[in-house]
């Protein structure tokens, strides 16, 4: 019995199961999940990252430079989330102590930030253990486009566990960390977000938030430091011209401007 196949079978000459799975995954109809990284859309930053963007199956730590910069770090995470494919929900894990301290995410604020609040599923947890459990469970389900959350303390062992869960799921895990208690971790990248003066229009009104972004640690990549601004309409990051004369740009709006209601 020797029947010639109508089309040649895919040449699966992989040696182990993982490779076979990889090959099969590649053959399945394309989906956003299969991509291994999502770029920030800024060549200067993406070139520093090993895969030309934030790796999907990995943990990324976003550290608030000072306690006052926590809102900026929140903003950077939300900007990253807003850039993800739209047809999957997003999970944000927030322990109650974080909420008491930094406030809670505001739906209208998220909306103004370009992230549809309906996409976000908020998970409130009583303590760190539950938050870690919820993150791991969300990753393992492979339902959301990304999992984000606030974690105050994380030792190497736990971060390895989260990193493994993220690798298994092939989903990005964005962890908001606080500068005062950072330990060594298994995260693929560590970003440090600081505050910067916002971009303003000619009437002195804020148009785009700006952050002082530092890629502090990046496995197989290069560290770097940039001042980026985020456009909530196009979901795009852009670099702030380093040579702009800040004195000039500030001239028009240095006095508080009253806006008619």
């Amino acid at each position, binding site marked *: 019995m020797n029947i010639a196949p109508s089309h040649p079978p895919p040449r699966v000459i992989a040696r182990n199961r993982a490779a076979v799975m990889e090959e099969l995954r590649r053959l399945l109809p394309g989906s956003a999940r299969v991509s291994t990284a999502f770029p920030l859309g800024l060549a200067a930053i993406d070139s520093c990252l090993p895969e030309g963007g934030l790796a999907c199956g990995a943990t990324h730590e976003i550290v608030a430079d000072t306690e006052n910069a926590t*809102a900026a770090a929140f903003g950077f995470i939300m900007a990253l989330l807003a850039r993800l494919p*739209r047809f999957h*929900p997003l999970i944000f894990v927030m322990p109650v102590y974080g909420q008491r301290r930094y406030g809670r995410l505001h739906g209208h604020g998220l*909306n103004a930030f370009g992230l549809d609040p309906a996409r976000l599923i908020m998970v409130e947890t009583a303590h760190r253990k539950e938050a870690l459990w919820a993150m791991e469970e969300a990753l393992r389900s492979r339902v959301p486009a990304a999992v984000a959350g606030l974690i105050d303390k994380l030792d190497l062992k736990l971060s390895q566990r989260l990193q493994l869960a993220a690798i298994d799921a092939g989903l990005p895990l964005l962890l908001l960390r606080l500068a005062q208690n950072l330990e060594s971790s298994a995260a693929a990248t560590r970003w440090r977000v600081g505050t910067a003066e916002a971009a303003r229009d000619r009437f002195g009104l804020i148009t785009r938030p700006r952050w002082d972004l530092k890629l502090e640690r990046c496995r197989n990549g290069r560290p770097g430091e940039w001042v980026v601004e985020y456009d909530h309409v196009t979901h795009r990051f852009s670099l702030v011209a380093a040579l702009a004369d800040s004195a000039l740009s500030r001239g028009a709006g240095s006095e508080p401007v009253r806006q008619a209601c």
Partner: protein
Amino acid sequence: MAQAANPSGRLVDVEQPFVLVAAAAGGPRVTALNEAADAAGLTSGEPLSDARAKTGFLQVRPLDAAVDAAALRHLTLWATRYTPTASPWGEDNGADGFFLDIEGAAHLFGGEERLIADLAQRLEGFGLRVRLAIAATPGAAWALSRFHETPLIALPSGQEAEAFAPLPIEALRLSPETSTMLHRLGFKTIGSLLDKPRAPFAARFSAELLRRLDQALGRVEEPLVPIVAPPVYHSLRYLLEPIFTQEAVVSYASRLMQALVHVLERDDKGARAIKLSLYRVDGAVETIDIGLTLPTRSIAHVSRLIELKLEALGASENAGFGFEAVGLAITHAESMSARQTELTSAMEEGGQAEDCAALIDKLRQRLGPQSVRRFAAVESHIPERAEMLAPVTDSSSPVERSETGERNRAKRGGRDVAQTMPPPPCYASSPSPATRGRKDSFAAEEEQTRPLLLLPQAEPAEEVMALAPDGPPRRFCWRGITYDVKRAQGPERISAEWWRAKEQKPEPTRDYFLLEDADGRRFWLYCEGLCGRETNAARWFVHGLFA
């Protein structure tokens, strides 16, 4: 039923005559008595003074009806291990027992005789003196259990009339007035009523007499009010050996679910709410309620949820001497059509909605139903009231929801006259690049400035220095740190909602400012009260943080 009331104070010696009394017309009357009191010749219903006269030493306690009712409820819940329809007796039944509707359940115990023997043995094990009767109608069962000479009786259907004839007329659950009147007229037994014409009774007595008679003989339905809502699907397993461990409970629960899956598949139904009942050997019942976001038939999912719930309960779950029966009831089912699963189903939207529901179920089961929530806009000007976090309970995926919002918005824009219900409040439409290009300079003015983070409660800002009374602050102190304001934007004036202010005094108007300090930190502050009109000393609050 034995009385459970045992008020604090001196202990009751159960070997000595002991009665419970309740206030009645003409002084307190005995409502319950123990064996010693019975031996001393006391009877239920006689005045307390008579009872005291009959016996030298009598222990008396007032009747606590609430404790009695709670104990009866507890016992009736336990009895759901025999059948899901169990109904405790109300006041008109004497409030000292319960009905079990064992239709279709008796064969599980090897017949009616075996069932009541088993029930009697277990109840006696709890220290109760029981009288049980099985009959075709609740009324007949009630009468036989009270007035038949044998404590356990199963009456075959169709023999009610013969069995009733010798019973006294009190067996019909009549009001005292009616039975007194019947006695006066010479009717002592039910048999003397049975062969009499009905019309004179209907004319002479209230409708109660004939209704009770018909109920006892099965001519009129007597509806039972079950103690728990009867489940849509139910499966129960009796164990030879009591189980203690969580693994055993989960494994039995998944076996019960497996038994139900076939029925669910046949009816195209999926479970939305599940109740797991664990019957303890000592008569207590532990129930675990599980709510599901999407109808499911998945055994693995349900058993995982039960496991999570048991873990969350942890120490508070007390197995006691072990569980001797496990019951799984589906209390709410919804239609769920069968879907063919394919190799690539993980890529499809349908599979994704189910996975999402499964994840939400898991999180809710472990963290509590209020912990997994989603933003929902509320129509209000006040920032803290303009939205709420609603528990994710409906089955629609977030993407679908936002699309509905989009549709509603489109409808409103098109001035659809047929629309009578206002659309649900939704978030302002996000700016799109198309609209952005047209009105570049007014983009910020059009979009309301709202912070990314809103503090749970507005926190007072101290040492506020403002140049003008209603101008933006130049410096303020919040949480112990002083900030120098570099730029300010505002104010945005938000006044109180007058339609809310009827009962309490109106809230002051707020002027919101967006402030940026020298380091680029952005705050949302407001000044409470209009200077000079509402208040003389304006107070400042930090309400939110911008990214």
